[in-house]
Structures are given as structure tokens and as C-alpha cells.
């Protein structure tokens, strides 16, 4: 894909917007359609586009294998951690009411954290799966 200068320029132009849109979907999921699952996939799509146009080796320099693997685990741990933190604060597992001063505030915080965990795991999963598939050279 080295000779397609239009693709290279356009994708370089679009990738920041894809990432920004992913973050919008992630944090606006409380008010409109969206949430962690969709945001994770869109976030991963930006890296996949980069990998398609500039080659997997270059994409791996941006996002090394160790980083995706760490993020993969970090998302699940953030989710479980939010649940466990609820226990330490005196509630049940995944009970968000106790996370903040008011119940509604706690719910807001809990949902934000949990959705962020979901988004991280989904993005890391999709990136990992695609890079592993595309890295097959035979």
C-alpha cells in the first residue's frame, strides 16, 4: 500500500477524527445512543485503518503487542475493580449507589467507569484479533 498516496493522506487526515468520535461515543453514551461496546470498536477501527494503510509493522510500533495485552486485562480489571470497590464502600458487588455522596452521582460514576472498562477491553480485543490475523504471512 505504499504507492497509494491519496489513501495515505486521507487516512492520516481521518484517523484523529475517528479517535475523537470514538471518545464522543464512549462518554456520550449516557445521553444518546452509544457506549463502551460501540466506542471500543470504533477506537479499534482507527488502528486497524492505520495498520491496513501503513502496514502491520508500523502499526505495531504505534501500539506494541504488550500494550494491547495490558489494556485487554486492564479493562476487565477496571470493571471488576469498580464492583469490588462497591463492596469496600459498604454496598454489594457492582452496587454503584455507594460510590459517591449521592446515589445518583454514584450511579453516574459507576456507569462511567464500567463503560470505560468495557470500551478498553473491546478495543484491545479487536486490535489484537485483527493484528494477529493480518500478521499471518503464508
Amino acid at each position, binding site marked *: 500500500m505504499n504507492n497509494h498516496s491519496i489513501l495515505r493522506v486521507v487516512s492520516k487526515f481521518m484517523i484523529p477524527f475517528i479517535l475523537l468520535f470514538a471518545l464522543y461515543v464512549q462518554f456520550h453514551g449516557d*445521553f*444518546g*445512543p452509544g*457506549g463502551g*461496546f460501540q466506542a471500543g*470498536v470504533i477506537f479499534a477501527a482507527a488502528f486497524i485503518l492505520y495498520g491496513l494503510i501503513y502496514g502491520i509493522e508500523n502499526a505495531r510500533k504505534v501500539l506494541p503487542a504488550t500494550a494491547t495485552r495490558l489494556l485487554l486485562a486492564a479493562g476487565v480489571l477496571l470493571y471488576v475493580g469498580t464492583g469490588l470497590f462497591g463492596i469496600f464502600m459498604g454496598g454489594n458487588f457492582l452496587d454503584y449507589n455507594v460510590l459517591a455522596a449521592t446515589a445518583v452521582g454514584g450511579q453516574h460514576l459507576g456507569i462511567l467507569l464500567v463503560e470505560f472498562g468495557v470500551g478498553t477491553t*473491546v478495543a484491545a*480485543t479487536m486490535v489484537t*484479533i485483527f493484528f*494477529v*490475523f493480518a500478521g*499471518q504471512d503464508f
Partner: protein
Amino acid sequence: MQLPVEIPGLLNYWIVIVLMMVGFFVVISHGNLVKKIVGLNVFQVSVFVLYITMSKIDGGAAPILDDAIKNYSNPLPHVLILTAIVVGVATTALGLALIVRIRDAYGTIEDDEITNQERDDA
């Protein structure tokens, strides 16, 4: 039975069932493993459509709260299917990874050729 009256109300379900059966047919009748995965995907999407069809309420709006709206569609199937779609693609990826490994081991992704090779080895 007042069957003719029910037809418009049930037509959606019937087309969905036809779609499901198309997916099922592809899975059981084709030997190519990638095509089997595609068939499984068609089956899966039609099950999703069945659920979402059940969640629709006449005149109901999308389940995002607004003071002006009284009538919403059923949000629970939406939640279930939302997560199922993402899980579905993750499991599809796992199946495709298995296909790649099968091709490494046998040199083919056709069902009957794999069976023949197994028989020859035994």
C-alpha cells in the same frame, strides 16, 4: 382459527424464520468451513432481528428518556442483543482462527477432504 387476520402481524416473524433456516441450511449442507461460519452469522443475525422485532411497540420511541415522550420501545432486548453482537464477533474471530489452524494442519478447509485425510491416517 382466524388465521387470515393474523398474517400482517406475524409476517415479520415468518421472514425471520426463513432467514434463520437459510443460515441453518448453509451450515449443514456446505462443506467449506468459511461458508459455514458465514451461515452461522446469518443465523445469528436473524435471531437478533427476531428479538428486536419483539421489542418494538406501535408508536414507541427509541428508549432515550425525554419529557415529551410517553411511549417507549422495550429496552431489555436491546441490551441483550447489543452485548450479543459484540460477543458474536469475538466468537466468530475465534472460529476463523481455528479455520486458519485447520488449514495449516490439513492444507484444506473443505469438510470432506479433512475427513478423508483423517481416514487415510488411521
